[in-house]
């Protein structure tokens, strides 16, 4: 008995030593990359899947031999939906872990919080979510959409005959920087199209608002004055009660279509979509896009979710920010290969003009100067199975305009990245 436990202990410690040795061996040859997504708190609902997607992409790159002959080693931290903690964690990633690049953030406020850290320490951040623009840092690459790659084409579609030729617009958003800036741009755009202020209504709700009775009643009242469309920048959890209320009050997409900028496949997982068929969302990618690259991407993701036993793996879906994460990591790997280095300045230079065949079915190119991807725009209709069917898309990827021409003073801004901008 005693001897047996001794044998056990010896094997165990030998095993541990071997593991430690292999770890040190490996550590010498890996490139560390940071993953900065909230895994707890309010944003966990959206950001957890981005962390998993990043890990899957890193696995895939490692399976192909890594970058410059070295394996990628992900360093995952949890900023817990706490904006100041984002800055703290990114400083830790850059100074202690010495990561070559960070993939992360979702809300604009978290990005704004880490921006000074990345600029001070000359780090590199890939930001994968559509946002309001008005920013262009040399230390950030934006793989999500700028307003002209999502919001404006969506409104143009609503104005077209197929979109219902809407005359009145109800702008509904959560009360923070992204919806407010987007709506400011949209209002100026609608003015330029001859829509008067009396035909535009702008309403904001707090984060996590759950009682949409009054707002839906107001939408109904507003829509009696002419063909109305709702443009929703409602974020996160509030979407479920909003759509439930819409359905229960009998407001159908044929009467008043709602186009949402923050509702994707992942958000629809929490909703019974049968009453919502016909409502719209504007993105640069949908899971239902039919092409071989996407089929492989979706299949890989489902297999990964199952293999890693992620919660809800049997119903795993992909969405736009996940695709943007995937594209961003691959673009970075390509650029690092091209630069033969992971040095931030060299990679930044190599990233300009770098292109990648994305699951959206297009070859996306990183702009030569403005750090944003050229992206196609797609309008999708909600289907009864929680997926979107694309009803309209641009012919080719659009160049981003981070400084929207619909905001005064932006015409004087340079179209390249400047620190502190």
């Amino acid at each position, binding site marked *: 008995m005693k001897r047996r436990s001794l044998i056990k202990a010896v094997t165990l410690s030998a095993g541990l030593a071997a593991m430690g040795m292999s770890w040190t061996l490996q550590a010498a040859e890996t490139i560390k990359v940071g993953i900065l997504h909230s895994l707890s708190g309010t944003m966990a*609902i959206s950001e957890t899947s981005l962390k998993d997607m990043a890990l899957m992409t890193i696995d895939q790159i490692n399976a192909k031999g890594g970058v410059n002959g070295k394996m990628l080693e992900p360093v995952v931290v949890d900023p817990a939906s706490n904006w100041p903690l984002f800055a703290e964690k990114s400083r830790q990633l850059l100074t202690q872990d010495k990561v070559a690049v960070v993939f992360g953030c979702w809300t604009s406020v978290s990005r704004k919080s880490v921006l000074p850290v990345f600029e001070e320490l000359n780090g590199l951040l890939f930001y994968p979510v559509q946002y309001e623009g008005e920013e262009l840092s040399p230390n950030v690459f934006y793989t999500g959409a700028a307003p002209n790659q999502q919001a404006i084409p969506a409104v143009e579609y609503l104005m077209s005959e197929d979109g*219902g030729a809407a005359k009145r617009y109800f702008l509904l958003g959560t*009360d923070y920087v992204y919806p407010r800036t987007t709506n400011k741009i949209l209002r100026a755009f609608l003015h330029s199209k001859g829509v008067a202020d009396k035909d535009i209504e702008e309403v*904001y709700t707090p984060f996590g608002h759950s009682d949409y*009775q009054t707002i839906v009643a107001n939408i109904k*009242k507003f829509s009696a004055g002419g063909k109305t469309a709702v443009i929703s920048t409602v974020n996160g959890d509030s979407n*479920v009660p909003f759509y439930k209320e819409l359905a229960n009050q*009998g407001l159908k997409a044929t009467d008043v279509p709602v186009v949402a900028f923050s509702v994707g496949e992942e958000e629809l997982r929490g909703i019974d979509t049968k009453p919502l068929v016909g409502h719209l969302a504007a993105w640069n990618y949908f899971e239902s896009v039919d092409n071989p690259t996407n089929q492989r991407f979706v299949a890989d993701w489902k297999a990964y979710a199952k293999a890693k036993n992620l919660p809800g793996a049997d119903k795993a879906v992909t969405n736009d920010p996940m695709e943007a994460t995937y594209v961003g990591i691959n673009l970075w790997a390509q650029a690092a290969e091209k630069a033969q280095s992971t040095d931030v300045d060299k990679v930044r230079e190599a990233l300009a003009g770098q292109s990648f065949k994305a699951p959206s079915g297009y070859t996306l190119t990183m702009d030569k100067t403005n750090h944003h991807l050229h992206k196609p725009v797609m309008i999708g209709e909600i289907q009864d199975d929680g997926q979107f069917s694309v009803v309209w898309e641009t012919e080719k990827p659009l160049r981003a305009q981070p400084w929207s021409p619909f905001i005064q003073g932006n015409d004087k801004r340079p179209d390249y990245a400047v620190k502190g901008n």
Partner: protein
Amino acid sequence: MSKAFYTLLLLLLLPLAAQASEGEFFITAKPTDQARLLQNWAAQPDPARLALLSALKQGRIGADDSRKVRLNNRLRGLIDNALASHQLLSEDVAVRLAAAQYLQKSAQPAQVAFLDRRLASEPDKGVKAALALALASLQLGASEPRVRLAAVRLLGETGDPQARTRLETLLEPGVESDSTVRTAAQTSLAQVERKLLIGELLGQAFSGLSLGSILLLAALGLAITFGLLGVINMAHGEMLMLGAYATYMVQVLMQRHLPGAIEFYPLVALPVAFATSGGVGMLLERTVIRHLYGRPLETLLATWGISLILIQAIRLLFGAQNVEVSNPGWLSGGLQVLPNLVLPYNRLVIIGFALAVVLLTWLLLNRTRLGLNVRAVTQNRNMAACCGVSTGRVDMLAFGLGSGIAGLGGVALSQVGNVGPDLGQSYIIDSFLVVVLGGVGQLAGSLWAAFGLGIANKLLEPQIGAVLGKILILALIILFIQKRPQGLFALKGRVID
């Protein structure tokens, strides 16, 4: 002879062939042509086309044709419109009535001639009236003043928000030249606006009641754990969340094993949620809270820690994403009371449910032995113990009861909002507000506070917006508590220590 026979056969088959080929034609046409086709069909309905249109509404061109038609919202609207106009030819009075009512909203100018013919030949009185109204909104642009006058008068009878817009457009300078029609339009507009105002006020009152009932359900459990037992229970929100997740589990299990009775899963979920939350509550009371009675600060920290643990545990088990809890058929949709007032069924049921839970809790506390013991223990622990009440057991049961009621609240919340790990976080502050405002230790206080807060919130929201409304309510409550620290209702007597 044979030639005549073939012609006859052809003629007989024609409607069938026409239908099939129309479907074929439709599926291959461009969206703009499809739209034109639907408009033509709507203006000249043909009974043979009904099957095609019904199939199109489902996104197909025939019941046994598996091909999908790609539709957008514009086409869906036109299909609905064409279908309604075909249904006017139906034998069934109810179908015709529904179709006529639908056309009141969506009739197109091209349909005037057809509607006119139907109006003349319609035998049923109700359908006739509905048709006349559908026609009236189109006839505002008619060339004869007499027709316009009749239409304007008819529109005054409705309480439809669209009638207001149409009358307002008519009254814009330069649109209507005939002065009699103008005056009639003004009278009608005033009539319509009065009706709309009634609908709006009722709607506001209803949404206030509904928000109040939700606040009440969220707070009722806390009224016991915090109000009666005095435990500052930060994990109360998580009891709501557990109830909602129990509902989700019941839904999933019934979908798998009892698909026939899935419609009634919320009813099955009620006892399950009560038992789950109540069980967890009793466990917490025995293991943690019991040791902290009389130390409010430690209780606050400990229960807050428990709430974090519960949230993360649920996140590990079910994932960070929200889970789908769907409304069963009888809780979807709403009751159309007035043209601008729909009362959603789920909200109606929740109001009733909230009141029922209050009643049951009240009965339990005031009419049973357990209730007597609970009140005795919370009012004077030592005296109760002297009289032979097992205070420990009563504490556990009372805490379990409060948690279980929170679980029931969770079932109701799952029908109106999100079910996710953070569900409780968004209700905990509101719950404390209700209990503190209502007066600690009083069920009636919570009842009044919940409905009062709900209605005040809904009265303020249209005026100053949701964000400012919430801030103002908070400020008002702070002022109120300054003036009256014991809340709306205070326990009277010398028993309070």
